[in-house]
Structure formats: C-alpha cells, structure tokens
C-alpha cells in the first residue's frame, strides 16, 4: 500500500491558542496532512503561507493526538443491522478517534486475508478513521485450529493484532501456538480472558448482587485464571500478550506481578469498567449487560489505580453495538455489549482527569500512543499515536474540557442505541477531529468527505 492511496487534508489549517495535551498554548499549522509548524500564539500570523489557511480558534480547547481504539466492533460484514463500517467509524471520529482496530467476530469471521482486506477497504471508503482489522486467532473463532495468521499479516490489511474476542482462546495448547506463531511478524495475541467452564450461562458478576437477584454468576476467578495462565505462557515462549477488557482487582494484581517479572504483557480497560458497577443489574435492564460483566466498586477503584500507575496500558472501548430488539427483552435473552466510541474520552476525563489521577498527557498515552504501539500502527505511512510535533502526521483531536453534555443514545452517530450512559451528563466534548489534516469533525459535528464518491 503506498501513501498515494492515503487521502490527506487539502489546504492548510491553523489552530490558534490551543493547549497541547494540557500544556502551554500554541498555534499549530497543518499543511498537506502534516504538522508543519508550532509556535507561540500569534507568531505565525505574519507568515505568508498562513494567509490561505482555515483558522480554527483553539482558545479553551486541548489538542490531543488522534485517539486510537484497539477494540471496536464494527459488525460489518454480517450484522449491518447493528452497525456498519461507515456508521461505526463516523461514531469513532465523533468520539475523537483517528484509528480503530476492528474486531474479528464478524460474519464471515475475519479469519482470512480476504475478509480482513474487505474490512480495511470498507474503512478506506468510509474515510472517517483508519481501520485496522484484527484477525481471528482460530478458524471461525472455534478455538480449535489456527487461522491463517501469516496470510493476514502479509495481506494489504497488514494485520498485527489477533483475537478471538467474544470467545476466549481457552485451549492452552492453541494459545501457546498462537503466541509463538505471531512472533514471526511481531504480532500480538489479544486475549478475551474468560474460562468457559466457569462461566457457562453466566449473566453478571458473581457476588452479592447476583446472589440476591438470582442471575447466574460470572466469577472474577474465571478472568484471573486465564490471565495468570497466559502471562506464564507468554513468559515461557517469549511472546507478546495483550489482555482485553480487564475488569477485576485480581486481574490488575496479576498484570502488575507479570510486568514486574519482565513479561511482555499489555492490558486494557474499558470506559464502562472504569465507571459502572454491578449494582446497575438490579434494574434488570439489559443495557447494563456486558461481557466481562460490570464488577464491584472495589474493582472499579482497582482498575482506575492500575490505569493511573501504568499497570494498565490503555483504555479501549469494546464498542459493541446491538440492534434494539437484542436489548428490549428480559436480561437472560439479551445480548452482551454496550456502545462506547462517543463517550470514551468523556468517561476517562470524568474518572481519571477530573479526579486528579491523570493528566491530559496521560490521556494521550493511554488513548493514543500506547494503543498505536501495541497495534504496531505507530510507524509508516499511516502512523497513528504520534506526538503533536512538527513533521508528524496531523492526527489531532480538539476537546473542550469545560463542556457538559447530556448523553442521548438516539442522537449518537453509531447505528445502535445501547449506550449505558444514556440520560447521564458527561464532562468534555470533542469539538474537532483531524485525520491527516482533514477535518472529520468540526464544531462537534461529523464532516463527510467531499471526495467520497471518487474513492
């Protein structure tokens, strides 16, 4: 894939008076998709090249590097009734993302070079964000035989992240082989840690609430046992492991221990596990049904602490859209999952920044730099997660941290309405998103690409 195929912004943009990752205010000049100058406010105004630039007033705004989601379900191909690559990536742009990794549990499954290339192409055509497909670990997510990981890695989609997400690679031998095999192309196995036998028919976190309301329990140990096994496997074979949506205090402890041993493991937490607890299940409203389930207050505190101290490397959305009928029913019959692309940054602000636990530079680390590095998309023609610096691709998100906005699931860009935050008011709003210099969001509204029909 050559850079000629990658659309860049046309013309130049001058963002004035913007605070770069929460630090001092600067003017940032973008031209031809690249950050060409950063200077003190007003210093660039005399510059001739600036005369024709579109000026965006960044006063009161914070510039973050474009966000990178390592865990998005775009549902296409197969479940276009829930989401399409077009609607899902538009939601991503609205949430401040410039890249998403598209999970493999589509239909057909992203387990061949053909399917991952199809998803990548749909992403290019939509043009909202860079779409990096994730390849399945096993054929059909069945957990029996390795999918053609090498073919997907060598394909035009250049897959580096492999996951059976939605299902756990439970067979220890298959997991070992997968960890070993991806070493050949610097890949990573992103594990959905869920011991299947301990979670048969499980509906929610096993604990005080499940005991009382009579929903079958999903015990913390079912997650922790797999993570413990997998970090030891990764150590044994010298491979790279990524743990998806870690949700329990015990999981944080295991990751902390593994990192202290030098094991090459990274971990993610979702916005919903940073904010919500299993007490919400008392409403029996399946909008709160998710896998792994919402845990306890103590778990929420532990994942916040783990994210702040670097034990947890990234926040990833696990954006999981579902059609209305899959949530408009009794709890046991409902699908697992919640949307998150358009609220992730606000939840991180509320739980981590406004509480004083993280700086905006930390936010840039866990929502941009680290996920891009784990996905190995931080270099090359589509480099993501780069710093806001001269010569870097102009992937920039402008946010207004003072904004207060009500969440209305029906108003969101995603095609589905299963947001657990519907009706809440969240801090912070994405005002603009630039993908290589082109504004995908301006004034908080998505901006469709003008050359779309030509692509």
């Amino acid at each position: 894939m050559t850079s000629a195929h990658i659309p860049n912004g046309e013309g130049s943009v001058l963002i004035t008076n913007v605070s770069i990752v929460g630090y001092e205010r600067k003017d940032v000049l973008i031209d031809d998709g690249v950050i060409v100058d950063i200077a003190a406010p007003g210093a660039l105004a005399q510059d001739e090249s600036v005369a024709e630039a579109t000026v965006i007033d960044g006063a009161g705004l914070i510039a973050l590097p474009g966000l990178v989601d390592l865990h998005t379900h775009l549902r296409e191909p197969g479940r276009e009734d829930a989401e399409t690559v077009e609607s899902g990536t538009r939601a991503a742009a609205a949430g401040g993302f410039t890249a998403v990794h598209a999970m493999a549990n589509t239909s057909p499954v992203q387990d061949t070079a053909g399917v991952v290339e199809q998803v990548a192409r749909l992403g290019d055509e939509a043009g909202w964000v860079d779409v990096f497909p994730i390849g399945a670990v096993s054929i059909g997510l069945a957990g029996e035989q390795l999918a053609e990981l090498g073919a997907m890695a060598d394909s035009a989609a250049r897959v580096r992240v492999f996951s059976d997400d939605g299902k756990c690679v439970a067979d220890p031998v298959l997991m070992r082989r997968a960890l070993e095999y991806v070493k050949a192309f610097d890949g990573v196995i992103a594990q959905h840690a869920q011991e299947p036998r301990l979670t048969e028919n499980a509906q929610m976190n096993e604990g005080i609430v499940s005991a009382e309301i009579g929903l079958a329990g999903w015990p913390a140990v079912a997650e922790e046992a797999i993570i413990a096994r997998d970090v030891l496997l990764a150590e044994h074979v010298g491979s790279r492991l990524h743990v998806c949506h870690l949700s329990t205090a015990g999981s944080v402890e295991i990751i902390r221990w593994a990192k202290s041993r030098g094991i090459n493991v990274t971990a993610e937490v979702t916005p919903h596990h940073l904010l919500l607890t299993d007490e919400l299940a008392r409403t029996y409203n399946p909008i709160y049904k998710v896998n792994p389930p919402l845990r306890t207050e103590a778990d929420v505190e532990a994942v916040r602490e783990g994210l702040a101290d670097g034990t947890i490397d990234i926040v990833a959305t696990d954006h999981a859209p579902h059609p209305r009928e899959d949530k408009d029913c009794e709890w046991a019959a409902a699908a697992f999952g919640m949307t998150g692309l358009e609220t992730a940054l606000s939840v991180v602000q509320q739980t981590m920044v406004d509480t004083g636990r993280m700086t905006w530079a930390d936010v840039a680390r866990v929502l941009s730099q680290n996920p891009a590095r784990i996905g190995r998309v931080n270099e090359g023609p589509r480099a993501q997660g780069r710093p806001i610096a001269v010569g870097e691709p102009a992937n920039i998100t402008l946010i207004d941290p003072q904004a207060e906005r009500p969440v209305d699931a029906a108003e969101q860009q995603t095609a589905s309405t299963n947001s657990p935050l519907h009706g809440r008011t969240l801090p912070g709003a994405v005002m603009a998103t630039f993908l290589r210099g082109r504004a995908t969001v301006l004034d908080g509204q998505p901006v469709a690409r003008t050359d779309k029909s030509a692509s």
Partner: protein
Amino acid sequence: MRHLLSTSDLSLEEAVRILDTTAQMAATQEREVKKLPTLRGRTVVNLFFEDSTRTRISFETAAKRLSADVINFSAKGSSLSKGESLKDTALTLKAMGADAVIIRHQASGAPYTLAHAGWLDAPVINAGDGTHQHPTQALLDAYTIRRHLMGETMGEPDSIGVVGKDLSGLKIVIVGDVLHSRVARANVYLLSTLGAQVTLVSPPTLLPVGVETWPCQISYHLDEAIDQVQPDAIMMLRVQRERMSSAGGGFFPSPLEYTRIYGLDAKRLGRLPEHAIVLHPGPMNRGLEISAQAADSPRSVIVEQVANGVAVRMAVLYLLLTGESSAGTAAHPTGKENS
C-alpha cells in the same frame, strides 16, 4: 404496592397487611359459597412461560373465587413457543385490556422487566422467576407459619387465624438447594422482615457466592442446626435430581449422600421441638430431601400450604387490583367486620 415482584420490596406493614387480608380470605373459604363478587368484570392473565400446573391452578382458583375473568396464556400451544418476544406478548395483553398479569418465567427479572419497561400498565405479580423470587410462595409459607405458631394456643389456630401479628421471635430453618431456589430467596427476605430468625442449611456447593450478606444465618450441617437452633419451623426445599449431573459432575456426590446429610427423616423429625412444623413448597421428592414419615407426619403442614396458597393469592390480587394497599386503612373484602 403497585406490583408484587420481590419480597425484598415489602415493608413490615405491607407484609402483615397481606397476611391479615389472607386470613380474611381464608375465612371466606370456609363458607358454603366460596365465591366473592370483588373482582367481577376484571380480567386477570396467567402468563406462564414455564410449566407449573400447581401454581397456575392456585392463581386461577384465587382469581375465580374473586369473580375475575381468567385468561391462561402458556408457552406451550401459543405464539410464545414460536419465539414471540416478552415485549410483543406484553403489548398483546395490554391491547386485550388485562387488569393484572401473573407471570412465571424461567429468566430472573422477567417480571421486573414486564412491570418497568413501559410495555404494560397493569399490576404485575411474580409467580416465580428463574432463580430470583417467588413472593406468593413465601407469603403462603409465612401465613401458614403464623397461623400455627403465633396463635393464642400454639398449634391450634382458630378458623380465621391470628391477625396483626408478625413472626417475631420465631426460629426457622430452611434446608436444601438455596443456589437455584427462588423460594429460599423469597422466604429469607420476607421472614426476616417479619422478625423471624432464619437459618439456611445447605451443602456449600448449593449456596450462592454473596449469601453472606443475606439477613440470615448459614449452616452446612442439618443435625447441628436442628440441635443448636431448635427451630419452630423447618422448610425442606426441593432438590432437583438434574443438579446431580450438571457441570463439574454435579453439586453433590450422590442422592444417597444428600439424603444422609440433609434429608429430613423420622430421626431428625423426632429431634425437633414438640411444636415445630414441617413445610415443603412442593412438589416433593419423597426419599430424597424428605422421608415419607416426615412428609405424612402430624407435624407436616404441607397440604395446608396448598390451601393457604389460594387465600394468599386472593389477598394479593385483591390488594393490587382494588388499590387497597396502604397498611392501616382497614378494608373488608369479605364484607365482614374484622373482629
């Protein structure tokens, strides 16, 4: 009280009021003509997603004794077996003008969803949902216990039964599969609200993680519990034989071992206090959780529980459908002064 979904929603006053109304209903059932005109013209729907002939018949009898029209809507032989959603069923019932919906469902929380999703305006009565709650069962158990143990002369209640009393001071032991039991959950909350001291006896595998926060004591040993608690009432829960063959090879090693450690046999029956009564929600597994001697002994009130079930359900239907739900405003559904 707009719906009856869980006994944990009931205040002491509300619970006592239901028991008092039950006593009045029970008194009418001693009359030659059992039918009351109270709910004439009202339509009550029995919505059963799970087979339960006895509970359905009990509700149907209760509604008919109050002169309500009863529609039985069961999963088998209806659109439910063709995969119609709970929502569409609810909308159908609403369109038909149901005045109350009694729901039995295999999914915990389905009655709560039916009551709160905005699909339906009618009061919802939970007739057993998954492993969550079975409030009318707990109410009939509490009524039966009160009638026998809180009367002026213990064991010989008068025909109307006592009124106005809770279960303060009583010690009640519940034995069996607590993990999967909606009857156990419903009883723990109701009996403790009524002032009784509840002890659950179960193998550790059949207690849910999180049970330690329930308002009750826990024991793993029936013999110890009988000797230490000296219960006024003992309730044996049904143990489903399929629990033997589920994941992990089952929840206990064998039915014989279960019976040996947790079954109520003649010997254990003999060690109960003189006045203690034996309850079972039915249907019984004779020889597994309860022996024939225990089930058929004079201490057993199991058959009476069934009769009281009708009276309790009449009381609940009456209170929900006539809006006579606040404690203290004396209602006289039977047309007799409360004496």
